[in-house]
């Protein structure tokens, strides 16, 4: 087991930076009174943020990923999440082989 003081303090600083971002939203919003337009914006936030996180992986990585993303949407309308994951992963792997 190695204990490196420099690495330790670096990990601590990165932890603090990470936690600051995570707690930041809650701190900012704790006392905010939102008008109707801001409320509409906040209600859209889960969809907007989640789409922004996921879109590049499905749209910019290539055809296998795009096809797998479309498959996930279609299967996701009916099937439970575990099935969607397996179908999407299998589609990526198979399509990479096929389109390779």
């Amino acid at each position, binding site marked *: *087991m*190695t*204990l*490196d003081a*420099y*690495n*330790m303090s*670096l*990990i601590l*600083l*990165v*932890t603090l*930076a*990470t936690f*600051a*971002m*995570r*707690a*930041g*939203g*809650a701190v*900012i*919003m*704790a006392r905010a009174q939102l008008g109707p*337009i801001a409320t*509409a*914006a*906040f209600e*859209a*936030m*889960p*969809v*907007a*943020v*989640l*789409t*922004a*996180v*996921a*879109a*590049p992986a*499905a*749209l*910019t990585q290539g055809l296998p*990923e795009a096809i*797998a*993303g479309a498959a*996930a*949407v279609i299967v*996701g*309308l009916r099937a439970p*999440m*575990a099935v*969607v*994951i397996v179908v*999407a*992963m299998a*589609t*990526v*792997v198979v399509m990479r082989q096929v389109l390779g």
Partner: protein
Amino acid sequence: MGARSQEFSAGAIAILPVLIATAPVAVLFGTLAVVKGLSPFEVWLMSATVFAGALQFVAIDQWADPAPLGLLVFTALVVNVRHVLMTASLGRSMTGFSGPTKYVAMFFLSDEAWAFAERRVREAGLTPAYYFGIGVSMWLVWTSSCLLGAVIGRGLGDPSAYGFNFAFSAVFICILVGFWSNWRTGVVLACSGAVSATVHLLVPGAWYIMAGAFAGVGVAAALHAEIDEQKTDGVMPS
């Protein structure tokens, strides 16, 4: 079982598919970090305290001896600034959380935990026990799998060869499908997705998430302002 432990189990069971997909990715992180010169204990410590999948991969990629401190802290802020948006949104639904509990909960936040929590908000309301069922089980799997990777070294090969990296995209798509309510959802989704993908292609780093998020939120606000104007004109909103 009490109501609390039932909620905790419900959260842990809901996140189970994500846990299965996370483990190989965490093992990969452990192996990469050891190659970069971190000791297994340092790998575990970083996973346990930073607890951020994407950031840890970016950080370990930039790791050198000595590690560039300023760059890494700046990277942590940039990569994780999306969490400000996530917690600002989720914080509005955490009415059952006491002040200190809310901040402990934020420590366990990840993209996946946040997405599942927002889904729970819409389905049944979010209790602290459900949230910690998600967060604590993810923490346990992430930290133990990172450590496992650091100890066993290069054993499993690259998880992306088996499509594991796409498993997270599938999870997010699945949750998004459940978020659909009307045509406005589609407009937000299209704007956010188009801007995010475009910025991802043009701008290095993690800015694409903020860009896409603000595009989606902006268009939602604009649509709402439009409806307000229609109301004052005496036209019923659709």
